């Protein structure tokens, strides 16, 4: 199914282009404008060139130190989140019931945390973790752990990470479940005839079929954890000290707290650039994975049938057409 070339398609895309350009390009122009200037209030601006950017990338200055520290914290946070949520999400997806009303019940319960406003997620965990009125904090302190997320760095980190696992693991699980659902029953039967072990089935059938959705899951989780703001802000307020101050929290502090427009704008641009680069890497990998699959699917039918061909997902399935 090859797409036809038709430049008139631009008319169909135009509304989207206008809406997104209005809300993305216009504000970004303001940011670029601010990032080159300094202000002392009263709407008076002074040209500052690349001064803010130099400061931002130099760890010895106040601004640079704060930015790089929060960036490091944020990257560490994102990696921990991915390391926990992706394997856990796969395990949960594999644990889904096969049929019956329990499937719907599990799906609805899993999706519930995703639909809670982010500040309420923060509030839930703020309450839940408090040693005086929260179940978690109360129990932990009563079994002899000195747990207090307000004053202890490590406790604050653990709380923020557990909260994110609570909030978003379902997304990974639901994505993987969707991937698993698309595997035809015949594959499993073939594997059974071949006498494949549970692990072999996972490695040869389930994991390859989940590839695509896993990529989406990793992309979404990385991006969203990289720009996390509301939940940790409500729970810890970025503290104790600065220990859970992530990039977005630092940015809002500078922009709306101190109203330091130049610095905030420079930070925004660098922040956006990092996101753009990561996004582009993922996009390329995703597009290439799509092409590879297509090529593989075209080759397979001609290839000699191998003994383990039953385990290969290629010939039966048509590759899905799509931009990605």
């Amino acid at each position, binding site marked *: *199914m090859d*797409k036809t*070339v038709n*430049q008139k*398609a*631009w008319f*169909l895309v135009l*509304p*989207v282009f206008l*809406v997104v350009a*209005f*809300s*993305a390009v216009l*504000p970004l122009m*303001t*940011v670029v404008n601010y990032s080159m200037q300094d202000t002392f209030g009263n709407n008076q601006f002074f040209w500052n060139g690349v001064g803010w950017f130099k400061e931002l990338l130099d760890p010895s200055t106040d601004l640079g130190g704060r930015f790089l520290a929060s960036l490091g914290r944020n990257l560490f946070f994102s990696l921990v989140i991915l390391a926990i949520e992706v394997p856990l999400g796969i*395990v*949960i997806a594999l*644990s889904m*019931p096969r049929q019956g009303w329990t499937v719907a019940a599990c*799906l*609805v*319960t899993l999706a*519930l*945390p*995703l*639909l809670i*406003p*982010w500040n309420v997620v923060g*509030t*839930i965990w703020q*309450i839940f973790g408090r040693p*005086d*009125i*929260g179940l*978690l904090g109360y129990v932990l302190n009563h079994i002899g752990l000195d747990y207090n997320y307000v004053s202890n760095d490590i406790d604050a980190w653990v709380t923020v990470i557990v909260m994110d696992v*609570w909030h978003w*693991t379902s997304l990974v699980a639901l994505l993987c*479940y*969707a*991937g*698993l*659902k698309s595997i035809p029953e015949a594959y499993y039967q073939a594997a059974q005839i071949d006498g494949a072990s549970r692990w072999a*089935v996972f490695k040869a059938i389930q994991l390859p079929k989940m590839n695509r*959705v896993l990529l*989406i899951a990793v992309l979404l989780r990385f991006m969203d954890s990289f*720009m996390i*703001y*509301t939940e940790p802000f409500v729970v810890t307020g970025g503290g104790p000290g600065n220990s859970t101050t992530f*990039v*977005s929290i630092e*940015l809002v502090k500078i*922009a*709306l707290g101190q109203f330091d427009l130049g610095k905030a704008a420079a930070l925004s641009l660098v*922040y*956006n650039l990092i996101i753009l680069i990561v*996004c582009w890497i993922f996009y390329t990998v995703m597009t290439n994975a799509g092409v590879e699959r297509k090529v593989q699917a075209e080759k397979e039918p001609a290839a000699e049938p191998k003994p383990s061909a039953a385990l290969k997902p290629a010939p039966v399935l048509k590759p899905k*057409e*799509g*931009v990605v």
Partner: protein
Amino acid sequence: MHSIPGRRLIMGLFLIFLMLPIYWLVNMSFKTNGEIISTMTLWPHAPTLQHYRRIFTDESWYSGYINSLEYVVINTIISISVALPAAYAFSRYRFLGDKHLFFWLLSNRMAPAAVYALPFFNLYSAIGLFDTPWAVALAHCIFNVPLAVWILEGFVSGVPREIDETAFLDGYSFPRFFIKILVPLIASGIGVAAFFCFMFSWVELLLARTLTSVNAKPIAAVMTRTVSAAGMDWGLLAAAGVLTIIPGALVIWFVRNYIARGFALGRV
């Protein structure tokens, strides 16, 4: 074959882990503030509806819910209606700069809200939309429109091309084909996309709070009022929190059969 040993136990434990904090919030919302602070009780010993009554009778509280729903609905309608034709175009045609445009859209879905908070504030103040639901609805388009295009593109690609061709041979004009044939065919996809727009607009707070002050204040921002000189009104905060969970739960119930495919954005 499909599942792993001990799956019931794993699933059960995980669901308990998910529900426990929510249960605690619900539990607290039915307690009096005296009971919350003085004792640790696993269920409300003297159940009360006072917090809910206060929210439903005080206009500054319930108007927060109405404001939130207002901008969420506006945003969902805008996002879906502009995304539908674009999804069709991306799915069926190749045109100048299509790949770059798609990537650019996708990158906006990933842009941090914190970056846009201040420029949006300036922009919407300048055009006189500040503190209206329209400002928030338009601002949320930045991440919802790309998402809607992405999801719908997956669903449109699932419709065989022959159907378009047959319809055009039968003399359908493009708009008529679109409304009479394509839209009914991908109705479930539109439902899923609307669900996601609703979801991401409903849960976002940073932009919603920055772009409103009094008239269009979302419920999430009203909730911060529970902090007063007399200390936290925990019961009221919990009740308000519980009420924000309900719309989401209702919406999930309606799309429960499409949830799995929807989360895979229509492309499994």
